[in-house]
Structures are given as C-alpha cells and as structure tokens.
C-alpha cells in the first residue's frame, strides 16, 4: 500500500536528521561516560552559524553547512576544555547537570545575538519527485544521502584509523588507556570536535526542513536520546539504525495515535528498550 510506504519514507527522512546528533551523542556518551545534553544546543548553533553565512555573507547553503560544521565543532571543543575538562573525575550526574547549564548558556547566547524571531535559509523550495506513487523530496534525499555517508565515514574512522582505534580503546577502558600512554585528552578533544561538528551539520538539515529559532535543538533532544539508547551506547551504526527506527515509529504513529502525542513515542521507545534489552541493538554499554 502506497500510503504505508509513504509513512515509512517520511520516517526514514526524520530518522536521517536524528542520526547525526544521535551518533555524536552515543559515541561521546561512551567515551566521556555521561549523557551530554549540550548536543541540543549544538544543533541550534550549527543552524545559526549556517544562517549567518547564508544571509550575512550571501553564500550558498553548501558553504554555510561546511561553516556550521567548523563553528559548532570548535564551540563543542571549547566547552569541553572549559567545563568538562575540570570535571573529568566527577560522577556522571554532575557532568550531566553541567551540560544542562551549558545548554542554557549557549541557547541564550544565540537568543542574545539573534532574538526570538524565526528565520529561514535562502534556499528555493522544490517539488517532490514522484516514484512509484511515493513522494520523495529532493532536499530530503540529499539529507539522507549525506547522513549515511557521514556515518559510514565515522565508522571507518573508528574502525580503521589509529586515532579512531585509540578512541575506542579509551572508551572501553580509560584507565588502561592512560597507563598505556594514549593521549586521552587529545582523543577526547578530537571526539568532541567531531561530535560537535556532526550535531552542527544536523542542525542545518533541521533548519532546512523547518524554521530556525533559538529553541530549534531543544525539541529534538528526547528523540536523539531515544535513538542513542535504542542503538546501544557507543555504536555509530547502532545510533543510525536507532535514529531511523525512532523516525519511522514517530511518523507511523500518526496512523494510530493523535499527532499531538508524537513526542511520547520517543519516551515509549526508551522505556521499552530499557526494560527489554537495556544494552540496545548493538549491545554497547556505557
């Protein structure tokens, strides 16, 4: 039935947008041992950085996206140095609370500079392609494509590069890693930079799909959590799969429950996963 296929596709696209922050969030949770709520703020910062380039400098959205990656990665790295670095040995709860404080600060910095008004990128809207009765938006296809590519790159990095392997080693056993002389701080720095960049890029996608305002990221954070937990903390492909499933479930849920309860779907997923298979699909555990 075409209709079901349409919902499925819609869900994949939504999941695609969730995937990048979910990967960042999941990998960082495993490495740093706490859920970093600031990922929501990184989404917002990425969207606004791209806005500044797109509107302010008049550049195309591709350039704006690249700038968003750079800016958000840098901000994330700086936050880590200033806030989380002095707290490396604290309990996860304290770090999580600190990350909430960071979110407050970053979101309101954006509000301070740009105000509350909503904005849109300077990008033409195109009609969707029709394929076998399915309506497929051009932008959506591009977002999905870029996302999958990035996740593949991340997985390749973690699996085949020295730094990536060192990152996994540090995540699995930080004490041993330090004893063995791995540059843990540099590893954390690179991971944070990369994670921040991913989230920033996703923020631009979100901004393309909706509108841009300081509350952009905060609406997504629960779905990101759900995706990361479903996929298994620490696994990039797991986070991607988790994101796609969360996206599909959220979109198809409108067939059975009122759309006003869409947010509840994410929570329901979390609860179900934690009760049935807490380690998630890919089996990682922080």
């Amino acid at each position: 039935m075409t209709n079901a296929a349409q919902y499925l596709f819609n869900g994949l696209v939504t999941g695609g947008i969730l995937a990048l922050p979910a990967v960042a969030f999941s990998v960082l949770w495993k490495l740093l041992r706490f859920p970093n709520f600031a990922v929501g703020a990184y989404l917002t910062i990425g969207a606004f950085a791209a806005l500044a380039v797109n509107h302010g400098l008049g550049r195309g959205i591709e350039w704006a996206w690249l700038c968003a990656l750079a800016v958000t990665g840098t901000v994330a790295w700086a936050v880590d140095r200033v806030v989380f670095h002095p707290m490396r040995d604290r309990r996860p709860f304290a770090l999580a609370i600190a990350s909430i404080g960071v979110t407050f600060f970053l979101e309101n910095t954006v509000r301070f500079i740009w105000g509350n008004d909503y904005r849109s990128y300077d990008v033409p809207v195109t009609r969707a392609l029709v394929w076998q009765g399915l309506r497929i938006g051009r932008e959506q296809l591009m977002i999905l494509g870029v996302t999958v590519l990035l996740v593949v790159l991340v997985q390749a990095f973690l699996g085949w590069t020295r730094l990536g392997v060192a990152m996994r080693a540090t995540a699995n056993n930080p004490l041993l890693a330090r004893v063995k002389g791995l540059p843990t701080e540099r590893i954390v720095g690179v991971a944070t930079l990369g994670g921040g960049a991913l989230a920033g890029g996703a923020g631009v996608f979100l901004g393309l799909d909706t509108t841009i305002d300081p509350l952009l990221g905060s609406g997504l954070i629960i779905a990101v959590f759900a995706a990361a937990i479903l996929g298994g903390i620490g696994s990039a492909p797991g986070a991607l799969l988790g994101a796609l499933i969360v996206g599909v479930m959220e979109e198809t849920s409108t067939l059975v429950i009122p759309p006003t309860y869409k947010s509840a779907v994410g929570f329901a997923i979390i609860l179900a996963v934690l009760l049935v298979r807490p380690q998630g699909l890919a089996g990682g555990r922080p």
Partner: protein
Amino acid sequence: MIGYLVAIATLVGIRALLTLGLNVQWGLTGLVNLGVVAFFAIGAYTSGLLAVSGVALPLAWTAALVASGVAGAALALAALRLREDYLAIVTLGFGEVLRLFLLNEAWLTRGANGITGIPRPLHAWFPAHYDLFYLGLVGLAVGTVYLLLERVSISPFGRVLRAIREDETVAAVAGKAVVRFKVQAFVIGAVVAGLAGVFFGHYLAYVEPNMFLPQETLFVWLALILGGSGNNRGAIVGAVLLLGLLEGSRFAKDLIPFLTGVRLAAAQQMLVGVLLVVLMIRRPEGLLPER
C-alpha cells in the same frame, strides 16, 4: 512593596516544598528524579479539577496527595530497576507525557485553556489581607513538612536510605529490601511535590499545562544544588536563593538601562546557565553541607 514581598514569599514557600521533596529522593536516597514537575502538576490539577467541580477542599487536597503518591509509586516501581542515568530520562519522559496528556485530553483537563476560577480556601473569612493568610498557610505547611522530614532523616528509615545512596550492594547484602525502600522514598518526595502543587493551584486560582514545563524541574534541582543537597535546611535556603536570583535580576535591570527586552531576558538565563556550571565545578555540594 509589601504585597510584592508577600507574593514572592508565598512562591518561595511553594518552591521550598518542591525542593524538600526532591531532597528526600535525591539528597537522602540518591534517586535522580527529572520529573518533579509531573507530581507538581498532578497535585495542582487533581485539586483544581475537584475543587472546581464542587468537591470540598479538604477532600480535594487529600485526593491530590493520594494521586501524587500513587503516581510516584507506579513510576518508581516501573523505573527503579534501572541505573542512575537511565532513571533520569524515564522520569523526564513521564513529566513530558503527563504534560501532553494535560494538554490534549481536554475532555478531562480542559486542555490548553486550563482550569480557571479555582476556589481559594477560606477566602470569605479574610476579605482584606487574604494574601497574608495564604502565606501563613504555606509557611505552616513548609514548617510542618520540614520537621517531619527532619524526623525521617534521623530515623532508622532515613539511615537505610542514606546507606542505599552510598552503596546499594552493601545495603542489599545487609538484608535490606532496596527496591522497597527506594519506592517509599520516591513516594514521600512525590507526595510533598503534590502538596506544593495544591498550594500553587489555589494560589493562582488557575492552572494550565504549560505551567509545568521540564524547565520547572530544572529550577528545583538548581535550588537544591544551590542550597546543599542532603540537607533539609539547605533545600529551603536554596529555594530562597533561587527566587532571589530570578527576582533580583528583575531589579538589577532597572539599573542597567542599555540591556533591554530580549537581550536582558537572555542575559538573565545565561547567568543561570553559568551559575549551574560554576556550581557543579567549584561547589557541587552546595551552600550547606550535609550534616
């Protein structure tokens, strides 16, 4: 000026109740409750709905407290098999789902319009200075709850809770039914939060779903962290400091003319963020350490 201070003091009292409740859950037992606002809402809505339907106030209040307790028990039993950081998300989810329920099920909760005209207790007895009377009522509640919780804290029950907070495994090995104690602690906190909700609803004479956003939970945490978690006096102090911060910046802005409107509001919130971070780095135990 007096009217303003009385209003602020009343709200401080309500926040103090919320913070005291969280202190039992987190400060004493180490349970991470990110859904404090849910029990606040249950208390306010249950009492509000019943009162507006003509139910006698003492009955409505009892129902509200029972509802909060039952909801707390249900949530705790479902979630307490999980670890620290997972419990956080589950309680957060409960808070949000409850808010959506309040927003969408208008047939029961009046939806986005909220409940107006919630009767104020003994309003007819105090035609003048009603706000002072209400402040007295809230103050009495805070005092009573404080004393009760202090008793709990030094009781054998309280000692078990603290033992659970420090090391669950040891407590379990010592023969304590850890889950049962945790649920009881959670329920106590939930009931106190529900009581805060009751006072809130009757004070404003109006409740609506967007009064119960996740941010409210965050403020309760901030108050507890500020004042010193594990310490009931700290909970009250934290509530005072929090409202002092929120209200103080209101007056500060009258002295800083160049910051206006959105900028000022954003700066205020940035300050909250910075404060939270600085606290967690420099002084995570808060102002008043646990005894």
